[in-house]
């Protein structure tokens, strides 16, 4: 079985499980400070931007309903997209997995005769590892989003959906620009400081030459409107506009769940996305294009529709709601686990709460990392509360935990299969069974409680074995001399035995 590629150089089988990665990252005080600062900055702003709209709840429900409706008729809408884009002068390609998508894009770039492409930040191309595939074919991909540029120059990995370099502070970014820009093109200006405006200016100068000379661009899309064949990209910097309008050839790689049925549906999503994402009323630039336009923008347009595990997620009645995601990253910004562990611990292009439910569905729960992701949450529900399309992330996390420990019917690469429970949970399973048995037999529970009470003087402050994970950072509560049920029996034994 080929593994589904999800945007990390190391195969997921080799990547550490989430708790092991987090064991290290939680001790990285610079990382902790950077993430705390950035996520707390955006939280209050998002709340204020959302509070401006009295109808947020209705918009959110409509966003969820439109996405659910689209997913329910996805075959119809994909065919409609294909027809509309083709009619507008574009070409549509279908990629079942990352390898197919990478092969299609590589071939399309080669057909132009070019060896360089400029890229708009795109989760889908991150997911499929397009840059690495192009590099293997001798084609250089230049990331043009500021944060993606920071990541690319720093030979780093993205750690956030909206702000891939969120784990870097301004001083680190300045150092990366100073030492690395000259290796890719125009060097950083002399005397560059860590003022964000100066850093942005350095990126402007560095990339301008690339924009002016690029003949091929690769993008993703935030939305594809089925009835018109219109693609939509929302962005802030203008690098998106540069890539979408200056080159001769534009290749857009888009997950099949990005489709929305009608032009009118944009009125919902263009209100939900910017406020959830950058906490703005509207992001600085939104580009919409339909096929090709004479004398304005690229003369050739290719749309690559990507599955890569999405239809597997679609087959799960609980898990499919993850496909509503519009990649706003609000869930990352409020997640207490993301804030402390950082994005890299999730081992995927999709970090944070949404990553914890998307990655195991796209990739499966075979590797230690992927099987650990559904547990990378305290189920506090902050993600669900802010999600603009009402994905009940805790519900899907629990569903995926079930898939890990109980196994059961799943769809893997388009084929229905019954999977076995993951290894490594035998002791836990036995404990859960024993607890369930005791809870079905109140007398057994009472006997256990009495034993604990009688031996309370002997209880250690720190536990051995699995209990060590608790007592390493926390004291244990004292077991009382008498359980509640014994107290009740002793004081009011004749009542309430109904």
């Amino acid at each position, binding site marked *: 079985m080929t593994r589904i590629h999800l945007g990390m150089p190391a195969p997921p089988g080799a990547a550490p499980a989430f708790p092991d990665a987090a064991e290290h990252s939680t001790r990285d005080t610079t990382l902790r400070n950077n993430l705390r600062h950035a996520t707390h900055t955006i939280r209050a702003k998002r709340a204020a931007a959302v509070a401006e709209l009295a109808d947020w709840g209705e918009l959110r429900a409509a966003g969820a309903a439109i996405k659910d409706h689209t997913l329910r008729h996805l075959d119809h809408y994909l065919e409609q997209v294909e027809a509309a884009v083709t009619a507008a002068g574009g070409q549509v390609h279908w990629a079942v997995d990352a390898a197919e998508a990478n092969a299609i894009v590589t071939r399309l770039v080669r057909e132009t005769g070019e060896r360089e492409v400029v890229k708009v930040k795109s989760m889908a191309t991150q997911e499929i590892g397009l840059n690495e595939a192009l590099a293997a074919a001798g084609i250089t991909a230049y990331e043009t989003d500021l944060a993606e540029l920071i990541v690319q120059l720093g030979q780093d990995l993205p750690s956030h959906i909206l702000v891939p370099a969120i784990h870097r502070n301004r001083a680190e970014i300045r150092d990366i620009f100073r030492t690395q820009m000259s290796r890719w093109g125009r060097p950083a200006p002399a005397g560059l400081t860590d003022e964000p405006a100066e850093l942005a200016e350095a990126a402007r100068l560095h990339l301008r030459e690339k924009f002016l000379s690029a003949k091929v661009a690769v993008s993703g899309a935030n939305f594809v409107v089925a009835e018109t064949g219109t693609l939509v990209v929302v962005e802030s910097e203008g690098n998106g506009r540069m890539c979408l309008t200056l080159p001769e050839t534009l290749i857009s790689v888009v997950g099949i769940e990005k489709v929305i049925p009608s032009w009118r549906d944009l009125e919902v999503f263009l209100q939900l996305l910017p406020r959830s994402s950058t906490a703005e009323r509207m992001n600085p630039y939104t580009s919409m294009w339909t096929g090709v336009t004479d004398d304005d923008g690229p003369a050739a347009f290719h749309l690559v529709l990507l599955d890569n595990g999405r239809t597997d997620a679609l087959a799960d009645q609980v898990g499919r709601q993850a496909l509503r995601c519009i990649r706003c990253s609000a869930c990352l910004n409020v997640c*207490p686990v993301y804030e402390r562990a950082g994005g890299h611990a999730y081992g995927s292009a999709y970090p944070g709460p949404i990553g914890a439910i998307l990655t195991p569905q796209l990739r499966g729960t075979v590797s230690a990392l992927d099987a650990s992701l559904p547990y990378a949450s305290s189920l*506090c529900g902050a993600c669900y509360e802010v999600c603009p399309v009402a994905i009940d992330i805790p519900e899907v996390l629990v569903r995926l935990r079930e898939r890990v420990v109980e196994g059961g019917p799943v769809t893997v690469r388009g084929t229905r299969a019954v999977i076995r429970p993951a290894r490594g949970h035998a002791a836990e*399973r036995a404990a*859960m069974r024993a607890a*369930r048995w005791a809870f079905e037999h109140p007398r057994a529970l009472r006997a256990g409680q009495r034993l604990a009470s009688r031996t309370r003087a002997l209880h250690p402050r720190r536990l051995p074995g699995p209990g060590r994970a608790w007592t390493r*950072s926390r*004291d244990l509560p004292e077991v009382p001399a008498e359980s*509640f049920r014994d*107290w009740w029996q002793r004081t009011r034994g004749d009542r309430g035995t*109904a």
Partner: protein
Amino acid sequence: MRVALFVTCVNDTLYPRTGQAVVTLLERLGVEVDFPAAQTCCGQPQYNTGYRHESEPLLRHYAEVFAGYDHIVTPSGSCVAMVRDNYPRLGARARAEGRGGALAEAAASVVPRTYELTEFLVDVLGVTDVGAYYPHTVTYHPTCHGLRMLGLGDRPLALLRQVRGLRLVELAGADECCGFGGTFAVKNAAVSAAMGADKARAIDATGADVVCTVDNSCQTHIGGTLSRRGSAVRPVHLAEILASTEGRVL
């Protein structure tokens, strides 16, 4: 009004004082309380860890034990959330798997009758002043399931504000999870401990001598973290504060 106390397995075993406080409080308010002795656990630990099939018998058990009561009151937001949100899901999944509607019916029978303590006080009894006296500086941590799944909102604070002698101080970042999360606390111990440490620091910074919640499972984590840090702040369940009077501070 037939009111049953669902004390929860955690309170039964580790925090009997909380259960006793609920009985004291409700009886003081003129409510006759029963404790069906066959009760055990709502099944949340199993369900949230992924053992859906292990939690099903506990749903059935809960429904049997509490059949016939008008109100089931429990001093745990988390356990109520299990009943209200997850019992119907267990029922729906069983039905979708072709195993009939019995589980869904059992769930439907208990959902409307199950109340978190502050819901019962404020919504059913219609009281916020329960005649309590508690001479301490208290900060309140709204636990996640109470805050976001049940939407308890202002209820616990409304009750605390009416307690005589009590000085209520605000907790910074109150809506952030303490890091307990059931088996999360052990499976992801490093992240859980980091969250707990931040919560404990925020609690210490309030200057309170008591931190109050409506969930003793979270309190176990918060209290254990505070204690390990050498903090003097004591974790106390809201029920114990509300049950306290001039004559008897719990």
